[in-house]
């Protein structure tokens, strides 16, 4: 149980927008230039490798021309599954939102229980340790059988994927609340609810948010795989559909979108965590 990992992910140096222009230029040179150069290089290599007529995969230039219609027109709707990329991603995000929010509520509650009660820890921890190693898709058949419907099954898979890191991090955070804070609460005589909101949640927040961040990443990983199997509107099935139609360029575009959306999900949770945990680290 390392406590040193607590602050690392949360406190990256932020740049104050002071003397604006110079600062902005420096930031651009420092943070935007390197990834831009690397990206250009990688695209160049890809273009070279795949530009021969016998290449199995399309080069980036061809991907762009093939998928231009999809890129410029993300929100068309021709009925059925034939919808723009925007709709596909929104459908996936909606499933993730339901499953993830459920996992947050249940995960934090269970984590607090396991962190607070030694008995609950002894009883539940072995169960968690076994269940958390089950791969997300292995849950799909049994949840399809249980729910008899694809949408709740997909949501359940997200839920069961995201919940483990949330439970485990929350319980570690709660167990690591310094004895001093408990003593302060006891001397002041905070009651259970006050202790929960005034001491426990803020003290464990850095741990909880690192669990939430891992959880949101995992749920986005799981949704793509789950949708490939259950079908319907969604970025996962879009990829599967494109594969069946041999539209490799569409797959490449979808992968780019999946990556970008996953990146932003992670950043959003990290940002919320940063705001909430500001000042909660040890002084």
């Amino acid at each position, binding site marked *: 149980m390392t406590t040193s990992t607590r602050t690392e992910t949360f406190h990256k140096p932020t740049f104050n927008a002071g003397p604006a222009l110079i600062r902005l230029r420096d930031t651009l040179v420092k943070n935007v230039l390197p990834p831009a150069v690397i990206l250009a290089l990688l695209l160049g290599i890809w273009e070279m490798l795949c530009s021969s007529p016998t290449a199995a995969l399309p080069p980036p230039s061809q991907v762009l021309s093939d998928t231009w219609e999809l890129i410029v027109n993300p929100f068309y709707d021709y009925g059925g599954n034939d919808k723009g990329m925007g709709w596909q991603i929104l459908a996936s995000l909606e499933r993730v939102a339901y499953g993830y929010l459920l996992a947050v509520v249940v995960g934090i509650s269970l984590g607090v229980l396991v962190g607070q009660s*030694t008995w609950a820890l002894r009883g539940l921890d072995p169960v968690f340790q076994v269940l958390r190693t089950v791969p997300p898709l292995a849950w799909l058949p049994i949840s399809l059988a249980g729910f008899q419907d694809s949408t709740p099954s997909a949501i359940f898979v997200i839920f069961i994927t995201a919940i483990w890191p949330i439970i485990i991090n929350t319980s570690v955070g709660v167990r690591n609340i*310094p*004895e*001093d*804070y408990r*003593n*302060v609460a*006891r*001397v*002041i*005589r*905070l009651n259970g609810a*006050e202790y929960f909101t*005034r*001491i426990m949640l*803020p*003290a464990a*927040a850095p741990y909880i948010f690192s669990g939430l961040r891992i959880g949101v990443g995992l749920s986005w990983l799981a949704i793509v795989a789950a949708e490939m199997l259950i079908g319907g509107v969604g970025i996962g099935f879009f990829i599967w559909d494109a594969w069946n139609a041999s539209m490799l360029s569409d797959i490449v575009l979808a992968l780019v979108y999946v990556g970008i959306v996953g990146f932003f999900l992670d950043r959003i949770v990290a940002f919320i965590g940063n705001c909430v*945990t500001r*000042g*909660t*680290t*040890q*002084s």
Partner: protein
Amino acid sequence: MATHYLSVEQVEMTFATKGATTNVLKDINLAVERGEYISIIGHSGCGKSTLLNIIAGLTESTSGAVILDGKEVNAPGPDRSVVFQNHSLLPWLTVYENVSLAVNKTFSRSKSKAERHEWVLKNLDMVGMSHALSKRPAEISGGMKQRVGIARAISMEPKVLLLDEPFGALDALTRAHLQEEVMRIQDELGNTVIMITHDVDEAVLLSDRIVMLTNGPSARIGEILDIDLPRPRNRIELADNPNYNHYRQEVLRFLYEKQRKVENLAERREKAVPTNAAKKARA
């Protein structure tokens, strides 16, 4: 017996660690009058913090009782507020909020909202921290944190103020400064104070009586020394005072001749006071 303001009667403390039991405190009897300033001094690991925690109600003694103002102590509460060695301010709250959390809880019925606000400000003013109300603990120095810790403790209007090596973590100059402040505040409010310390000068300068604990295991009260020096006391004038030097010598003689430490200090501490890690291992 019940005529004393605070009496510690036949307190004994035994810890069970890793199968072995260690008797930390034995036959502790102490009577404290209202408005007295008592220091408890002893070598590290002798169990003086344990004794303070028992009086605070944070630790339950194995046998014996602590009676404060006619009532037995069996849980922590605001009538025995503690200034912790490492200040124990909540890092996610501002200076003002750290004190107001205690004030709002303690006086939720007896004071109006405006009165509580005034009271927080008054107590922070008393320790000279009015300038930093909206700062967080991470933004102020160690001495300032301890000032806020003292303000939090006295704001609860405790019957007994418990100081657990309050200046131990501070540099010598800051420590001297805070000792003066504590003398001034005690002069003003007439609090009953019990302070744990391992600093001989500090004990003689601040106390009406010094309680000297013998070395553990089974530490008991070795001697009690009355300090009959006029108040207000001034450390510079006292340096030439023969009585002051005599008292110092008495304490030094007790600590370094009668109770000389021969054992490895770290080992002793490990045995006498179970560390957090040891507690967790047992849990």
